[in-house]
C-alpha cells in the first residue's frame, strides 16, 4: 500500500470514548482528561509524553484551557482548526504531517461536550447574532432552521434531480440503528427502528423528518497520533494512517455551488490518492451521519457509487450488519451518540473495527477503514484512511 509518508509511518496508537449519553456528574474537562489518559495508556504513553495538542470547542483560545487542565508543560505544536464536525479528521491530517516532520511526537486529539445536559442546541439562525453580518442581512430573515433546513434543501434537490426517495434516505437511518442494536453504549440500543418509523416521524424541514436527524447527546473522545518508534510499546494494535484529505465549499447556503456536490469530493480524492486506494478497497466506512442525506452524499462523493446513485445504493441493507459496505458501525450519530462534533468518535470506531475489538458488531477481517467527517452546513469535509498492518 503506497503512502506519501511511506518511510515515516504514522499511527493512531490509542483511542477512547468519554462518558456518553447524559452526563450529570462530570465536567467536559474531567470527561476529556479521563479519555485522554485511557487513550494514552492504550498507546503505552502518559500525559507527560504529549507534545502536540489538537483540539477545539472546549473553551476560548482553542487548545489552551484543556492544556492547562491536563497540566501539559511540553507542548510544542498547537492546532485548533475549527471546521465543525470534520475537525477531528482534519486534526489527524495535520497531526500526521506534524509528527512525520518531527514537529511533535505524541499528538493528542479530542473533544468533550455536554450539549444534551446543557440544552445547548437550538434551530435558530445564529448568523443573526452579529447584526452586521452577511447572514444577518441576507439569510437569517428567511427563517431557515440551522442546520437542518440547509440539509433539507440538499435532500430536496437530490430528490428532484435524481428521483431519490424518503424511503431510501430512511434506509440509512435503519442501517445505523441496526448497528446500534449491537452496541450497548448506543443511545438507541434496544430501540429498533423501521423505515416506516422514520418516514412517519415528525416532519421538521421537508423532506427531512425527526428520525432523519442525528441525536443530541453528551460525549466525546480522545485519540493519540504518533510515530512508529513511540507506537512500538502500544498495549493494543496501533492502526496506520494511510492518507488524509480535507476541503470546504461554502458557509451561506446560497453560495454552495451545487447542492448535490460536497467538499467530500476533494477531501476523498486527496485522502484516497495519498493512501493509494479506491472506494472498492474499503472494508468499513464511518461517515458523519448528522442527517441521512449527509451519508448519501458521502457515498457518492467518495466514489462508493456514482453521482445520483446513492438512493439505490443504500437499499437492501448494504450499509447494515452483513451488508457489502458496513457503515456507521457504532450506530453513528443517528442511533449511537452525537455530542456535536461526531468526527472524533468516527475515528474511535474505525480503529476498534480495524483492531478487531468491536465485539458483536465486528466487521470480520476489516483491514481498511475510512472515517469521513462533515462540518457546518455540509460546508467542510475531512477524510482519513486507516489500515491494519
Amino acid at each position, binding site marked *: 500500500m503506497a503512502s506519501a509518508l511511506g518511510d515515516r509511518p504514522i499511527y493512531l496508537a490509542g483511542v477512547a470514548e468519554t462518558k456518553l449519553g447524559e452526563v450529570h456528574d462530570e465536567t467536559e474537562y474531567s470527561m476529556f482528561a479521563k479519555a485522554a489518559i485511557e487513550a494514552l495508556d492504550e498507546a503505552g504513553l502518559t500525559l507527560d509524553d504529549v507534545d502536540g495538542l489538537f483540539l477545539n470547542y472546549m473553551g476560548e483560545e482553542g487548545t489552551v484551557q484543556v492544556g492547562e487542565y491536563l497540566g501539559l508543560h511540553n507542548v510544542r505544536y498547537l492546532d485548533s482548526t475549527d471546521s465543525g464536525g470534520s475537525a477531528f479528521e482534519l486534526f489527524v491530517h495535520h497531526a500526521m504531517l506534524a509528527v512525520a516532520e518531527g514537529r511533535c511526537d505524541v499528538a493528542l486529539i479530542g473533544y468533550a461536550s455536554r450539549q444534551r445536559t446543557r440544552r445547548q442546541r*437550538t*434551530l*435558530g*439562525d445564529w448568523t443573526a447574532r452579529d*447584526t*452586521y453580518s*452577511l447572514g*444577518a*442581512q*441576507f*439569510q437569517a*430573515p*428567511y*427563517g*431557515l*432552521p440551522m442546520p437542518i*433546513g440547509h440539509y*433539507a*434543501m*440538499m435532500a*430536496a*434537490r437530490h430528490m*428532484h434531480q435524481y428521483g431519490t426517495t424518503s424511503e431510501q434516505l430512511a434506509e440509512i437511518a435503519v442501517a445505523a440503528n441496526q448497528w446500534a442494536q449491537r452496541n450497548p453504549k448506543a443511545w438507541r440500543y434496544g430501540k429498533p427502528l423501521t423505515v416506516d418509523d422514520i418516514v412517519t416521524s*415528525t*416532519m*421538521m*424541514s*421537508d*423532506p*427531512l423528518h425527526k428520525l432523519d436527524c442525528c441525536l443530541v447527546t453528551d460525549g466525546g473522545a480522545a485519540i493519540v497520533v504518533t510515530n512508529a518508534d513511540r507506537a512500538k510499546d502500544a498495549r493494543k494494535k496501533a492502526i496506520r494512517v494511510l492518507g488524509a484529505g480535507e476541503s470546504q465549499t461554502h458557509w*451561506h*447556503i*446560497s*453560495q454552495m455551488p451545487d*447542492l448535490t456536490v460536497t467538499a467530500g469530493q476533494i477531501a476523498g480524492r486527496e485522502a484516497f490518492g495519498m493512501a493509494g486506494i479506491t472506494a472498492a478497497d474499503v472494508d468499513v466506512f464511518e461517515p458523519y451521519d448528522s442527517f441521512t442525506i449527509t451519508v448519501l452524499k458521502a457515498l457518492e462523493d467518495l466514489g462508493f457509487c456514482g453521482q445520483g446513485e446513492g438512493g439505490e445504493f443504500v437499499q437492501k441493507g448494504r450499509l447494515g450488519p452483513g451488508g457489502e459496505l458496513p457503515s456507521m458501525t457504532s450506530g453513528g450519530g443517528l442511533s449511537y451518540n452525537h455530542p456535536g462534533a461526531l468526527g472524533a468518535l468516527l475515528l474511535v470506531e474505525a480503529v476498534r473495527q480495524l483492531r478487531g475489538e468491536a465485539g458483536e458488531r465486528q466487521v470480520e477481517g476489516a483491514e481498511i477503514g475510512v472515517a469521513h467527517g462533515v462540518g457546518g452546513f455540509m460546508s467542510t469535509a475531512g477524510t482519513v484512511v486507516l489500515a491494519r498492518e
Partner: protein
Amino acid sequence: MSTDADTFDYGDTLSRPFWEAAARKELVMQQCATCGNVQFYPRPMCLECRGTDLGWTAVSGDATVYSMTTVHVQIDPDLVPPYVVALVDLDEGPRLLTNIDGDVEIGVRVRVAWRDRDDAPPLPVFEPA
C-alpha cells in the same frame, strides 16, 4: 410601511446600494464592468474575472426555484410554520435564499415581491410568476 434605508445601518458599505434600492422595492445586483458577470452578495472583486471595477444594475426579479424546504418548526417569532424557504436562480445568474408565498415546487418560475419590515428595509421575497 416601508422604512427609509438611511435610518437603518448594516455597517456594510458594500451592501448599502442593495438596501437603498430595496427601500424603493427595486432589486439590484453588483455587476462587473470588465466581464459583465452579475453577482450576489456584494464583494470588492468579481468572482468570475477577479476584476475590481464593480457597479450596480437593476435585475428583472424573474427566477426559477432551485431547491426549497417547507419548515414545520418555529424558530422565528415572526414566521409561523409551515412556510417555504427556497433557493431561487435569478435569470441574470445569482442564486438567492428567500421565502416564497404560494404553492410552488422545484423548477417553477417565480418573481420578486417585497415584505415590509418595521425595523429594516423591505425584504425581497418571491411569489409564483
